[in-house]
């Protein structure tokens, strides 16, 4: 029976109601589908996500139905997002691409927060580079990277401490050197008259090359 060919799955995800449609979507199914979606809107659901990826064939009247539902939903302050990338559905919705919020898959939907943005960015990068990491591998790599950075900071910190200690030591040694030199000079000055009288010999200057 053509009127019963379309499979429907409805579930809640976060604050949205997701509707997955699968099978051929003909004009005969439009009234019952409209009734079901209108019922969901009447139940107070204001954000619907409709996955049409598994719709094998779609009638023009179905797109008109979605237009009418979107109109009604936006009037109530809600929205309907569509998910598909299959050829038949894309062709049917091509005149209305600017009206509907259309996404190629569930992962591309805008999700709030830093993690959502990160997740989206990672998917874009994965698509561009072709490198895909599973969660455990990514987590292991992240932990390794974090550990490496931590050990680097630790080494720098230890080295900094040692440098500071050596600087202090050098400073104290320089001070001591300066004090010793001036003391030697003072002693030399004191001994000079005795040397000039020939009572004492200058052993220091003789040892020095």
């Amino acid at each position, binding site marked *: *029976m053509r009127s019963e060919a379309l*499979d*429907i799955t409805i579930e809640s995800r976060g604050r949205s109601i997701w509707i997955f449609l699968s099978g051929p979507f003909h004009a005969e199914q439009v009234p019952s589908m409209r009734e079901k979606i209108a019922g969901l809107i009447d139940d107070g659901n204001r954000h619907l996500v409709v996955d049409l990826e598994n719709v094998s064939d779609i009638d023009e009247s179905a797109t008109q139905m979605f237009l009418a539902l979107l109109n009604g939903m936006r009037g109530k302050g809600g929205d309907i997002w569509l998910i598909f990338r299959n050829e038949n559905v894309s062709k049917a919705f091509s005149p209305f691409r600017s009206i509907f919020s259309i996404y190629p898959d569930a992962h591309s939907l805008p999700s709030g927060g830093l993690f959502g943005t990160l997740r989206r960015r990672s998917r874009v990068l994965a698509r561009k580079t072709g490198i895909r990491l599973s969660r455990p591998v990514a987590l292991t790599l992240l932990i390794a990277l974090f550990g490496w950075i931590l050990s680097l900071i630790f080494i720098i910190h230890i080295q900094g401490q040692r440098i500071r200690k050596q600087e202090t030591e050098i400073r104290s040694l320089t001070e001591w050197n300066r004090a010793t030199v001036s003391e030697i000079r003072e002693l030399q000055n004191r001994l000079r008259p005795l040397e000039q009288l020939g009572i004492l010999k200058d052993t220091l200057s003789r040892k020095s090359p």
Partner: protein
Amino acid sequence: MKRHSIAFLIHPYKNSLVPKNTFRDAVNTFAQALIDIGASYQNIRLNVVMPGYFLEAIDPMLLLQLREMHKKGIVEWLTTGYTEPFLSFSPQWLLNENLRHGITSFQEYAGDRPAGFVPPFSNWEPSYIDVLSGAGIQYNVVSRSLLASQYRSRLGYWVTEFAGSSTVLFPVHSVYPSVVAGGMESWIQEQFAADAAGNVPVKLLCIDFLCPLLSQDMAVTQQGLAEAAAVFDRLLLNYQTIRFTEFLSSNTPLGLMYLPQSLVLRRDDSDTAPHFLNYLHSFDQVGIVQRKLMDIADNIASRKESRHAEPYKKTLFFVADINRYIPSKSSGFTRLRDRMWCFEKLIDIEHELQQHDGGAGGRIRIADYLRNGSKSIIMTNKNLAVYIDHKNGGSVFEIDFRRRRYNVCAGYNPSRHALPMVIEPGLSYTMFVDHLVDTATQAAQFRAKNAAELGDFYSGAYEYKIKKTDTSIKASLHRQGSLLLGDRNCPLSIEKMLGLEKDQPALPFVYQITNNSLTPYMFRLAVELTFSFPGIGANTAYLLDKKRKITGLKDGLVELPQATQWLIGDSACGVMVLCTLQKPVDVWCFPAVPPGVDPQQAEAVTLVLTAPITLDGSGVWSLMGKLQFKRQALAEKHIDEI
């Protein structure tokens, strides 16, 4: 003169579910018997067929010896796949995977690919020729009873063709060890003598030697194998035992033989039932199990990233095993244990897949689950899954209590349906079946199905509406029907609402009956709920009315007058169901068996919520209630069976 040939196919099999340890012991005993024969009779060649999972259970030391036998050319391997798949009941991709897994097991454990394929129960599907060829299968072995009767006595092999693809077929005589004991030599001579055509230089008699692996039969099997090997050894001067591929490489086929889709219901040479699928579709539960399998298989196949679903495939191979479906003394869908085992595995996979998908507050699906052209409404949350057939009286044909992996509606009705259909209204053991009968109807009368049906609600189609909020899902079923009072057809409508709240294991229901005329009506509403429990036969199932515990539910009729609460449970499956009603109704409880069948055989119990109703003109009557599913301690430890 050239010697004629005998292909001796050793076919170990296991029909029923057995604990894994028992199975492992049996397979190892069989492997040892095989090795002993190979060592004792070096001149005979053996063909051995087994599913891949049999090989996995064989001890590595024995496997090593079997590998050596294969290397020396004593043994040729054949397979049925990883398990014994029901080709006609499995999606093609699942069979493909099953075969691939089976071949991988052989390569890994036996050291070589199997050369041939043996469809279990000769379940031949011509459309699968390409799948088999693609998997590298050189030939197929089927029962000779699939051949037209005039060709059954011909000894050799055939080529079969379908849609441009062809493959080799070896027709076999299926033989049990006990049947041929003592008389095998003369039997072989008879078979060669029966093929009088004589236009082939070398004849080939193929013997499918069936070896049951169950412990009590194992001694007979071993003895039978040894006797058969001794006979072949004695006949060696007249007939040589060969491997199938040996014969294939040096002999031409007898001709082209078209085989339609077929199945040999018994593992012997009896004639096939021509419309076996119709036969299987004429009972409730076999269809429901198979459709659940198909639904899950489709779910897994539709996943683009299916890595996480990969482990479930192996479980599906076991559920698609033909032994779970073909009724026999020890296995099949007619056995409660087999049915429950299948449901348990399937509910587990379904639940895991849904958990992986995420989502909260339940899911509602409208899909052609029963594959009969009309939609079923499937409501699920973390704890329950409820399947509604709105076309056939708006009844519930499956309720899965997911915490226990248990379907409380899996009661098997032995009555064959009038037409091949999965659910027959009024006959199938489903829930929320609405009967309208005369107010004077007594429980015994209702039980014996002698109460005249006044309404058309138990089998009529209900219109449906679905409701979904963040926390709940509801299906509202409505039928504008009629009530036969005297000669008059009086308009009456029933609206019943079934729902799931959040992730609670509870199924609230509401009945609202409206009189659409100005004439007052009087009738009795009887809502039938059939619960399937494994402990009904063993008397572990019980009904609790207030503080009164009633056991022996299979023994007869129990009546609970004006009850607002009752509980039914069974420690054998660890499930209890508490029913709470907003207003008192009479409850009748009796074993679910068709009239004339011994109630001691009951595997399910029917509870009828009934009340006499008087509806004034434009009056409304309503009933609210709730079925709460709870776990209870299991009476026995769960044994993992295979």
